[in-house]
């Protein structure tokens, strides 16, 4: 008859494989198999994040300070609003998905099309939001100084507000030029130079009495430790070796490089799930439009892809909690 309803000729025979003790079709069962194993994969990632966080329990970055951007609000400290918005978008696209499944049960093709369309749009908006979030994370805001021990030092003013590298640095004539392909023997380029050299930062810091150094260590209050002016000068002079702007896999202006690695890996893996979910949704959407399931007499495919989509939402609920809240 069609691809998903397989007749084996053993219907009703208990031991012939023709009955469904769990009253779920083969396809739905396999989707659940996949979801359970994928849930364990995500748990592995999040538990590994937990491991690293417990390892650096007294110096982990504070998520509110890292993710505090909101579109069109430049320089405004808006912790969590943006992720909360993303969470809503994803939950709402889950709602439209379940409405599509519900309409499918009643064989209402038009409604299924409408709700699946909304779901796809929601997924695309979420993906775009995530790209923006990544862009902010990678570009960075204030910049930091790296130490010999692989830690970072950040700058604050007397009131404890963060100060960007640009406001610390004293621009000095510098001899150093980027190593380009033309100037080397083997036509290799060096890494891009940071905007400021560590000497410029040190000189600027020494000249400005109002700036203090903030270390990664967390106080009893759960805030980052701010050193006194004397300690700041000493620490910067003795330990600072490099300048960090933004975040990548090897260095990170927000804290331990591991934090950025987990951010890229976990939200990236989740984003990849959303992306494939959107693709599968689009395929099923067109199948609905051309009437495949109407002819088949069952919209179970919509239900199966719906299961996957809800699972992606479910994972985000946990990522939201463990990356942004806890």
């Amino acid at each position, binding site marked *: 008859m069609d691809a998903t309803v397989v007749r084996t000729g053993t219907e009703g025979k208990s031991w012939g494989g023709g009955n469904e003790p769990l009253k779920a079709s083969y396809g739905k069962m396999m989707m659940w198999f996949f979801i359970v194993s994928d849930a364990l994969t995500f748990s592995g990632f999040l538990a590994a994040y*937990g491991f690293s966080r417990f390892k650096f329990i007294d110096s982990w970055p504070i998520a509110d300070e890292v993710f505090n951007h909101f579109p069109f609000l430049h320089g405004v400290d808006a912790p969590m609003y943006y992720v909360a918005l993303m969470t809503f978008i994803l939950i709402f696209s889950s709602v439209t998905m379940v409405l599509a499944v519900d309409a499918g049960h009643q064989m209402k093709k038009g409604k299924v099309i409408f709700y699946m369309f909304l779901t796809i749009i929601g997924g695309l908006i979420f993906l775009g939001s995530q790209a923006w979030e990544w862009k902010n994370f990678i570009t960075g805001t204030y910049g930091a100084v790296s130490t010999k021990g692989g830690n970072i030092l950040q700058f604050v003013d007397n009131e404890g507000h963060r100060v960007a590298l640009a406001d610390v640095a004293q621009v000095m004539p510098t001899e150093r030029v980027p190593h380009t392909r033309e100037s080397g023997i083997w036509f290799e380029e060096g890494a891009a130079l940071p905007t400021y050299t560590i000497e410029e930062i040190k000189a600027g810091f020494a000249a400005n009495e109002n700036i203090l150094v903030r270390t990664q260590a967390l106080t009893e209050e759960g805030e980052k430790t701010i050193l006194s002016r004397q300690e700041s000068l000493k620490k910067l002079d003795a330990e600072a070796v490099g300048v960090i702007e933004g975040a990548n896999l090897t260095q990170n202006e927000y804290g331990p490089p591991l934090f950025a690695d987990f951010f890229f890996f976990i939200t990236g893996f989740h984003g990849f799930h959303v992306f494939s979910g959107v693709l599968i949704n689009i395929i099923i959407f067109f199948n609905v439009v051309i009437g495949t399931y109407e002819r088949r007499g*069952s919209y179970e495919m919509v239900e199966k892809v719906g299961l996957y989509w809800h699972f992606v939402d479910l994972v985000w609920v946990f990522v939201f*909690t463990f990356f942004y809240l806890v």
Partner: protein
Amino acid sequence: MAHETAHHHESNTKRIWIVFAILSVLTIVEVILGIVKPGFLVHTDLFSMKLLNWIFIILTIFKAYYIAWAFMHLEGEKKGLRRAIVWTGVFLISYLIFILLTEGDYVYEVFKSNHVAWDF
């Protein structure tokens, strides 16, 4: 029963919107708590974790429950299938979390109390 043939289905739309409202309220509560960070919740510890974090985790599990039961329709599945899905996950994940967090805490203690300087 969702898995029987599609023809005798009454609409669950009302329930879907109620669940959406519940999920929204839980998320809003989480965000407000995360921004305000009430002092007594931050400074009270329960089983060596902040009370606030416990609240976040419990609310998250509530949300997960509603998504799995209402949206993924586990409430309509056979008990056997439901348990196979839920308990497999719950037991394996609890074990994973227990072992990794214990180990992470141990590494932290080693870093803190041995003779090698990690911040220099």
